[in-house]
């Protein structure tokens, strides 16, 4: 019963908000999302759809809630003990906050790449095989295949194929980050959340990750938080501008950067503040 009502609501919402209707179906539908850290109201009435198989960029100044928002999509934000939330996020017709929806199931479908490369202190192979292993895959042959496919998917296979059993810490920062992306691909998610994935990388590594994102969007829906507006302009299809926990503007990337409708967006992207 509950889910039916939710669906009706979404239909209504899409009809009302014509400008937000996309060609691509939505991966996430976020409705009236509010979030507090203790007394601090970090996300205010967030409402938007994230399209499937596209790159959605989230930009905004420090402390605007963009990282908080992306961590809400796979409920990693709940690792902060004082967090409180209201509203709903619909993923594949189910509210991710539903008590029957386990975070483990959600995170198997919604993978995440973090700001700082965080490979495990294990071999490259074990890093990639970690995801499949925790989901119960033990067959060595299957694991080998998953590892190769994921490393190829993250465009790092050729660089590491001869040293799969060496510690991942021996790699450069950029390579480590692509290992983390490969590790994320290994659980075969639908959505990949990227929280400033290039902020700790040098320009060449950044370029490689950006090219990779372009490849990945053919198969995955990608949400990327970035501090770097040029990056958002280069790689995303849609861009949302967050300010003080609110979505100020959310539209096609080209429109947002060339013809922003809100004065605050214009001020931000032209570098007048932030």
């Amino acid at each position, binding site marked *: 019963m509950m889910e039916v009502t939710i669906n009706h609501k979404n239909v209504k919402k899409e009809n009302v908000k014509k400008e937000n209707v996309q060609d691509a179906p939505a991966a996430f539908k976020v409705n009236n999302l509010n979030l507090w850290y203790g007394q601090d109201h970090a996300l205010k009435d967030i409402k938007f759809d994230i399209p499937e198989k596209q790159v959605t960029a989230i930009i905004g100044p420090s402390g605007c809630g963009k990282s908080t928002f992306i961590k809400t999509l*796979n409920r*990693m934000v709940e*690792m902060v*003990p004082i967090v409180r939330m209201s509203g709903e996020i619909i993923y594949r017709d189910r509210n991710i906050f539903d008590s029957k929806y386990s*975070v*483990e*199931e*959600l*995170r*198997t479908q919604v*993978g*995440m790449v*973090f700001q*700082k490369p*965080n*490979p*495990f*202190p294990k071999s490259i192979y074990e890093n990639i095989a*970690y*995801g499949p*292993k*925790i*989901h119960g895959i033990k067959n060595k042959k299957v694991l080998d295949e998953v590892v190769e496919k994921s490393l190829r998917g993250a465009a790092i296979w050729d660089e590491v194929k001869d040293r799969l059993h060496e510690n991942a*810490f021996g790699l450069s920062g950029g390579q480590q980050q692509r290992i*983390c992306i490969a*590790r*994320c691909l290994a*659980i075969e998610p639908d959505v990949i959340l990227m929280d400033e994935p290039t902020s700790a990388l040098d320009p060449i590594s950044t370029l490689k990750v950006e090219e990779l994102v372009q490849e990945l969007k053919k198969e995955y829906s990608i949400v990327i938080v970035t501090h770097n507006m040029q990056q958002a302009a280069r790689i995303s299809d849609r861009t949302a501008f967050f300010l003080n926990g609110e979505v100020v503007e959310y539209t096609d990337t080209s429109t947002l950067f060339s013809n922003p409708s809100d004065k605050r967006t214009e001020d931000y992207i032209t570098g007048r503040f932030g």
Partner: protein
Amino acid sequence: MALIKKETVRKRMGRRIAANSTAKGIFIAATMFALVVLAVLLYRIGSEGMEYLSLEFITNFASRMPERAGIWAALIGTLWVMAVTAPVSFILGVGTAIYLEEYAKKNAFTRFIQINISNLAGVPSIVFGLLGLTIFVRLLELQRSVLAGGLTMALLILPVIVVASQEALRTVPRDLREASYGMGATKWQTIRRIVFPAALPGILTGTILALSRAIGETAPLLVVGALAYVAFVPENLFSQFTVLPIQLYNWTSRPQEDFHMLAASGIIVLLIILLIMNSIAVYIRNKFHKRF
């Protein structure tokens, strides 16, 4: 118009540099003091203990005749007690640390437990001996057995292991946990596959250092009822026993000079065991040390 007079600065310069050298001198002196005491101790033990140190000394039982006396019973007794203490204190200590660090909510109650564990680490060992006497020897009727002694020792070092393990768990970066949870791992999978292996070197180091402390303890085992004169080795967990420090205590309290020299030989054996254990701790720390 400069606010700082160059002349004043120059005058103070000499005093500042002198104070700097003095500070360095004080700290060197503090270190030297400990080193000198240690050197004297080692020299005395070495010069007294070498005479009786031989293979027979290790394989003989205690005896009234110094030339035939050995520490076999005490050595094996110590190993038996440690064989009880090590697994019990490790399992309980690490389990407690994992609960407190990973599962327990940070509220007034866990803070209360935390403070008490830290305090227990500082409680005199004789108090643990009395506790062991009440619970293991009398209440559980284990009598003066290896089991009662080992469990008492486990209680003694439990707080130290808990605190050391908590420290080790805390050093595992949040990044690694996030990466694991982010892939849909459960809490238990994350602890078992990521957090625990990363913390293991620290946990093992803490455990081995705590066990080294237990090996040298006398008081609690005297209270629990370890024997002072034993001419047999324990056969099972319920056998009576003695341990190295008790044997040493027994020898040093005799009037004859020869027994004092035997005690010195025993101390050398004890020190060698401690040295081996600490080397293992260092080896583990270096071998498994992970970069984060």
